[in-house]
């Protein structure tokens, strides 16, 4: 495999070119091309079955690509030496129930492999970061699901990796745990570690990610920094007296999210709000409230998926 494009300018954390994966007749990933710079928190979003976990597994060498190329930290995927510098929390997290939390982390230190002299500090630090210090010597089989996910996060952190893959890292965590994970991700970013974050929790992604890619049906349908992606404004209107046909006539004002008493128009410029209100009134609707607001990631995400569906 050739060196990645742009290698001379320094290797990005992740680079993929037309990375594809088929399982029989099912296309799991259809030509993924993206670059994740070093030290960046990169959010990878998409509905269920979009190809997010497949992408992570391809990048980690757990699956073989059908076609395309990819590099991690400047080396082709599957390179053993590169894995010394990578941490991974799988979506399906499970650790040896017959070992203690301390022993699981010692195992990962050994496999990493880290110098034995550093294990104690690495393990202590990782356990402290995820809040498991008190349970260090307890068997993993006695842990709750949330605690096992914390342990998985600790395992991903040992050895100060340059790139960390977190696949749904808060799926089993309570709000406090989610907050802790956000802090951990910010901590990783502050020390220059690139984080590849797969998550369904859009608010979480919005809070910690520098850049986001949205995937659907195995391909990236949008990507960019948070500012680039959320440049539009959404307008929420509390309205009554409109039928489905009337609402359809308002399609020219942007993508409409019909929530019954509220209609949300995404990607609508604020200067068109009076025109929108006039159009609603002309159609016989009664307007009670108009609230322009910045588009959230969820607004944009739903809009992108809707556009994608219309196109296909």
């Amino acid at each position: 495999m050739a060196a990645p494009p742009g290698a001379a300018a320094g290797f990005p954390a992740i680079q993929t070119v037309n990375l594809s994966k088929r399982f029989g007749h099912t296309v799991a990933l259809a030509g993924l091309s993206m670059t994740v710079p070093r030290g960046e928190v990169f959010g990878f979003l998409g509905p269920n079955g979009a190809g997010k976990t497949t992408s992570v597994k391809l990048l980690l060498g757990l699956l073989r690509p059908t076609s395309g190329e990819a590099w991690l930290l400047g080396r082709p995927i599957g390179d053993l030496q590169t894995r010394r510098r990578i941490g991974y929390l799988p979506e399906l997290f499970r650790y040896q129930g017959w070992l203690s939390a301390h022993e699981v982390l010692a195992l990962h230190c050994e496999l990493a492999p880290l110098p034995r002299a550093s294990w104690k500090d690495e393990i202590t630090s990782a356990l402290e970061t995820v809040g498991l210090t008190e349970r260090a010597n307890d068997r993993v089989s006695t842990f709750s699901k949330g605690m096992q996910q914390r342990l998985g996060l600790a395992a991903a952190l040992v050895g100060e990796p340059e790139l960390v893959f977190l696949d749904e890292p808060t799926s089993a965590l309570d709000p406090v745990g989610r907050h802790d994970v956000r802090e951990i991700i910010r901590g990783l970013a502050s020390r220059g570690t690139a984080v590849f974050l797969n998550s369904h929790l859009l608010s979480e992604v919005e809070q910690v990610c520098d850049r986001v890619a949205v995937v659907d049906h195995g391909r990236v349908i949008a990507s960019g920094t948070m500012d680039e992606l959320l440049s539009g404004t959404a307008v929420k209107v509390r309205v009554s007296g409109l039928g489905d046909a009337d609402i359809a006539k308002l399609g020219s004002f942007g993508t409409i999210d019909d929530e019954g008493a509220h209609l949300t128009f995404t990607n609508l410029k604020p200067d068109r709000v009076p025109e929108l209100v006039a159009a609603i009134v002309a159609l016989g609707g009664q307007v009670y409230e108009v609230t322009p607001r910045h588009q959230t990631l969820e607004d944009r995400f739903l809009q992108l998926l809707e556009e994608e569906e219309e196109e296909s």
Partner: protein
Amino acid sequence: MPPVIVIARLTVQETSRRRLILALVVLTLIVVGFSAWGFRKITTVTTGNGATLPPEQVALITSQLLIVVTFMYSGVLALSAAVVAGPLISSEVESGLLLSMLARPIRRSEVVIGKWLGLGVLVAIYAAGSAFLEIAAVDWATGYVPPHPILLVLYVGAEGLALLSLGLLLSTRLSGITGGVIALVAWLMGWIAGVVGDVGTGLQNQAVENVGVVSHMLLPTDLLWRGAIYAMEPDAVLATLRSAGTFARANPFAAVDPPPLPFLAWVVVWFTLMLLLSIWSFRTREI
């Protein structure tokens, strides 16, 4: 520590902490205790005229009973190896346990070899330990020691390792239950096919004899078992079997000759092939 050794150690640690080793040790001690008591009875049992058995007869009965007891040990070893090896990789793939480990700088071949090595060490220790205890108990009870105890351990251990290798290969692709059941059925069918082959030898029918030859090539457990029997047979029994001609061979608890050297060479090749196949199968599996 090299990853292979780390994985091997982890495999031993798992079986130990899941108390499989403890269960096997306790069961073995119980069986050894009971069998020592039983073998002791052979020396005190009286015939119709009130006399105890002469030493030659005690040795003959003991040697035959020891073969049956060893069959039980080899069965326990084969069953344990198949049942433990069946889910060795598949369960860890299904549960996701291997995901975070395989993202480390570790080759899949190292996972396969490490698991084989870890379980192989346990099989070898169990074969040697249980054989030593049983032989010591029989020696104490009757004064009889089988003629080739070291060979006995090697053959029984190799039979366990063969089942372990088959179970591990199946484990790279099939679920634990499926792999374990297939390995067990293969072991029993191999045993039956060996008897069928011996019947062919007895009848001097080459086609039927070939059933045994082919089954021994595919899964050498039965012929290894015959090697273990041969290692336990005293000269007097061997002489009797040989004088009975080819029909004496059609008996799953008797062996007239040791396994031929070319076959033992094939066993080494077979183990290598199984391990290579397991590595290839796991390397090409998508997780």
